[in-house]
């Protein structure tokens, strides 16, 4: 993707982003979202008006430090608990669809 026109987004770009985000959006949604996202991007692009070259970014409001805890055994979920809400389970494990597609 190129950055030559911030604040505008095409239907094709939305389709590409939806694929990256694992969303099987419909054609109707693409039409709808492309228009709405274009309006939203036009509004949020305003952050670019702020001169902030020498301003440090903030990723977290409170300064983060690494937090350690004592390396002690403590109970976790049982296998039964972990699998209780699985869409599919077999032999005490999560059953998942085949990971790779046909062509792989």
């Amino acid at each position: 993707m190129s950055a030559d026109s911030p604040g505008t987004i095409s239907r094709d770009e939305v389709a590409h982003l939806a694929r990256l985000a694992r969303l099987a959006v419909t054609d109707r949604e693409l039409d709808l979202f492309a228009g709405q996202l274009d309006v939203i991007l036009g509004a949020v692009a305003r952050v670019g008006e702020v001169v902030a070259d020498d301003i440090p970014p903030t990723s977290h409001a409170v300064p983060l430090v690494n937090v350690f805890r004592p390396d002690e055994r403590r109970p976790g979920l049982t296998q039964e608990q972990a699998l209780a809400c699985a869409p599919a389970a077999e032999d005490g494990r999560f059953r998942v669809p085949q990971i790779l597609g046909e062509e792989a």
Partner: protein
Amino acid sequence: MELTRLSAAALAEKIHSREVSAVEAAQAHLDRIAAVDGTVHAFLHVAGEAALESASLVDAALDAGTPPASPLAGVPLALKDVFTTSDMPTTCGSKILEGWRPPYDATVTARLRAAGITILGKTNMDEFAMGSSTEYSAYGPTRNPWDTTRIPGGSGGGSAAALAAFEAPLAIGTDTGGSIRQPAAMTGTVGVKPTYGGVSRYGLVACASSLDQGGPCARTVLDAALLHEIIGGYDPLDSTSIDAPVPSVVEAVRAGASGDLSGVRVGVVRELGGEGYQPGVERAYRAAVERLEKLGAEVVEVSCPHFEYGLAAYYLILPSEVSSNLARFDAMRYGLRVEGGASAEEVMALTREAGFGPEVKRRIILGTYALSSGYYDAYYGQAQKVRTLIARDFAAAFEQADVLVSPTAPTTAFPMGDKVDDPLAMYLNDLATIPTNLAGIAAMSVPCGLAEEDGLPAGLQIMAPALGEAQMYRVGAAYEAARDADDDTPLIQRVPSLEVSR
């Protein structure tokens, strides 16, 4: 007075003195829910049996002469459906988690249980807390008890409406950009966003991790403070939890209720008002500021020049975090799975398409865009710098004032359907609440009368520096006491009565 009309503090007193049993209190609220929730739809799940059982344990302990587990033991509460509960479903208002029973309790849930609070059920919300009207819930909207053709605010519309409909005297919300405070303003109730890290996020299903904060909702400032002290405090299970004592907010409320604010500097934020704000909301707010002045507060005007970029920065940072956080819903370990795809990736895409609603999809796509190479610096990176500038604006303002004030939301509750297809118009609801989330500081909304053009409640927002909750609660309590003394009845008792179904 009916049990459901009492404040949590008054109800607790009756329960602890054994004038009323906790079971009676729970049953009264369950009956009220049965009577009005068909109209209001504040709840996604009502846990009647569990509530009565929990209340009977409180009764048994009190009858045995054991002191109450907390000042709110036996008082019923409505829990936003974004906190995990091992004995109730947790859906976050989303189809992707329909029927999900988490294998563990959130820290907030665990603390409520330990305090003997009766959890009545789980409240409706915009899907994954994305929205300002509760219309983006996959399970249908919640209606505002003040006018059931209007929205109750969002995302915590269910919790706020439950309070205003007298279905519960206490509720829990979460506030990422205003989801506790804006619904409080829309429903004439009190909502508090504590300092980031003040209430544990363990078991709070993430929307935007650097912004999310759980907090208390109630009908009075004292009730919010009592609940705040129960849910707040350090939790080793949340690495962003603040390892410091919970501010003494109950003591602050009791001090504030005496009504003397001399020596307190209140900063009026110049940028939060004017264009885009409903005249009746602004008038109610100005009257509230005058009242604070009459109570002895020194009112000064402060300027926060970067607030005008807050909304833009927020709607880049939030979707970016959302796109990453919601990647966990992959149809493999829990939640919905739509079969029919040839591979895990296809199953994932089909499941997420079916399980997420339009606003969640929009934000995931927006966040994916803002984080993509070529756009990252211009959008996400720049938004993080604006975040720094907003925090600096606050720091400068708090040199001139102890607390800052503004209207909580630019308008009163709007009609359902008005903004649901216009995302940007919906986002503008959060104009005045977003800056505090970006800076991680504390803020609350206290009802400040009704707007004259529509007779609907408006909110006064009070903001305080990180861990400055005591001063904020003091000002809120003083204002509330003066407001109620001037009016004949507390504002919330003026909610029109709802049609009751039996």
